[in-house]
């Protein structure tokens, strides 16, 4: 009786020993993985900080301005002038009534087969 119990206990303890060792090694593995990940995060944070710094440099007005100056001629751009500003109040009001005579003329022309847009397109050399 006691012998059987002892044998069972020996097997159980051996199994538990094996289990503990397996756990130990798996934890060590996880720890190593964690260290590797931490190092990777650290590296990537470093890279990210450099990228962010790059981004900040590229966004600086002091960086953009010389580029604009270089391409001023080709793009025909320049600093905005006061005269270029408009306001909603400066837009003329809509005419009180539509120009019916001009509309009629246009519809008649189209009905007769003359499309004014065609004339413009031909003039521009499109088609």
């Amino acid at each position, binding site marked *: 009786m006691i012998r059987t119990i002892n044998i069972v206990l020996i097997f159980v303890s051996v199994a538990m020993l094996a289990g503990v060792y397996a756990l130990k090694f798996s934890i060590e593995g996880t720890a190593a993985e964690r260290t590797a990940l931490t190092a990777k995060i*650290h590296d990537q*944070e*470093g890279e990210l*900080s*450099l990228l*962010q*710094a790059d981004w*900040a*440099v590229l*966004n*600086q*007005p*002091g*960086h953009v*301005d010389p580029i604009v100056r270089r391409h001023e001629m080709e793009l025909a751009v320049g*600093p*905005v002038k*006061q*005269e270029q*500003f408009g*306001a909603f109040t400066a837009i003329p009001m809509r005419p009180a009534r539509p120009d019916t005579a001009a509309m009629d003329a246009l519809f008649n022309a189209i009905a007769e087969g003359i499309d004014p847009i065609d004339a413009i397109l031909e003039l521009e050399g499109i088609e």
Partner: protein
Amino acid sequence: MAITADDFSPAIALVGARKQRVNLTQARIRWMILALVLGFGVICGRLVMLGMVETDQSIEGQTRDVIQASRPPILDRNGLEMAVDIRVPSLYAEPRRIVDVEEAVRKLRTVLPDLREDWLRNRLSGDKGFVWVQRELTPAIEDAVMQLGIPGVDFITESKRFYPGMREASHILGSTNVDNQGIAGIERHMDTESIALLQELGLARGAALTPVELSIDMRAQHVMHDQVVDAMTRYQAIAAAGVMMDIHTGEIIALASVPDFDPNDPASALVKDTFNRVTAGIFEPGSTFKTVTLAGALDSGMVKLTDQFDARYGVRFGRFTIDDFHGKHRILSLPEVYKYSSNIGTIRVMQAMGKDAFRAFLSRMKFDERVQFELPEMRVPTVPKEFSEVGAATASFGHGLSVSPLHLVAAYSAFANGGNYIAPTIYKRDVATAEQLYERVISEDASASIRYLMRLNAISAGGSGSQMNKAALGYRAGGKTGTAEKVVDGRYSSSKVTNFFASAFPLDNPKYAMVIMVDEPKAENPQSGTTAGWNAGAITGRVIQRVAPMLGIAPDFSEALDQQIVPASVRQLYPEGF
């Protein structure tokens, strides 16, 4: 036998037992002593061992916290980064682990040829546990050094401050030293506030700190910096500076001073003359100070806008006579005194106010103390404690006292915003917070009059601000020129001048005040002059032209806007207003 033995044994045993016990005790004592000696020996040995052990000088431990301490990013008012932390590798060595110093020196110098050979050899020899070789390198160099495979040489990642705006906001930001501690500008101010404590506690390490938001608008700052740099070549000036302030909140929108330095290379800040002229430079403000005199006089009620002042003859003080630069030599009304920048007229205005009242007004405007401001680079202005008659007369047109451009811009802000002094700040501040700090220095009426005078100087024929208004047309800007002659060999020199232009815009609903300073400018071309209108004034105009649309001010050419700022009393004198 047994009996005999029994009989004798006690006697023998008595002796034997005693002896035996004595022997046993002695043996035990000896063992005990041996054990104690051994025990103490071990402890002594351990003590000696501990004494022999060199303290670990490696970077691991506390030092790592310090060198990896990060600083919060600094943003401008629109969220654009002005200063960020980057992680950079730093090269260190452990000399006691280096096997072959000569080889290490030779190999390292193939990657880092800037290092001096004997210095490096000295550095790497010896038995030290940790020495820096070179800090803040690039990842490319890190890779190259790692490829060399020198034992005892390794990298550690450090936090380094990087300023993406390069030179543009150098005087605002200041810079940090190699240990990431602020040594100038707002970086230093931040340290005195809280960051240093955080770093000391090790809390700042790697943690994402809340960004610090400044009041600076990098777009306006770029324009300002661009223009003052341009002034250095255009007018061959020795220095130029400019500052722009939100008159309602006291926020500094732009602040530039050249010659400047590169905050990414803190050593460049040590070059002569790179100091911040806006805060740490004090100058005789010249005629820009006439606005102050007039504001004080108008506020005191002793002088009205419609008053006339006799400017026919110079004012005599003993042997001295003070005369006008472009004298009209007739009786001038107050707006004319301002427009023609009449020294005589201004002295008369000051005298009407009284010299003591004038001096008291300067104190009220805080001209005799440091401006309350975050940047640590500051100088105390020199304003005499009491004025003599002649001292007060010269002070009324800005001579015989020295203030910083920051003093001027704060004063002009108060004049333009309705008469409330607000201390400038470099941090974001909203109007509600600012209003609690307001200090009334002049009345609403006096402020309205000053706004009118400033605009008058820009648009009226003969006004010294017309050069400025040429560029800033439509933005309703106005201001006052100031040309202060420099003292050379104890005399005022007419060829060396410091020029100012103090302005505010848009004057129908003022939002910003600006002071531009140009030091020792020369004429741009033979047709132009060296007085302030030609340089400081023109710069102001160009800055406003570019900055106003960014700040949401639309140009408006309608005359009605100008007419509405003309005070009613002036209408009686000049029905046309200007």
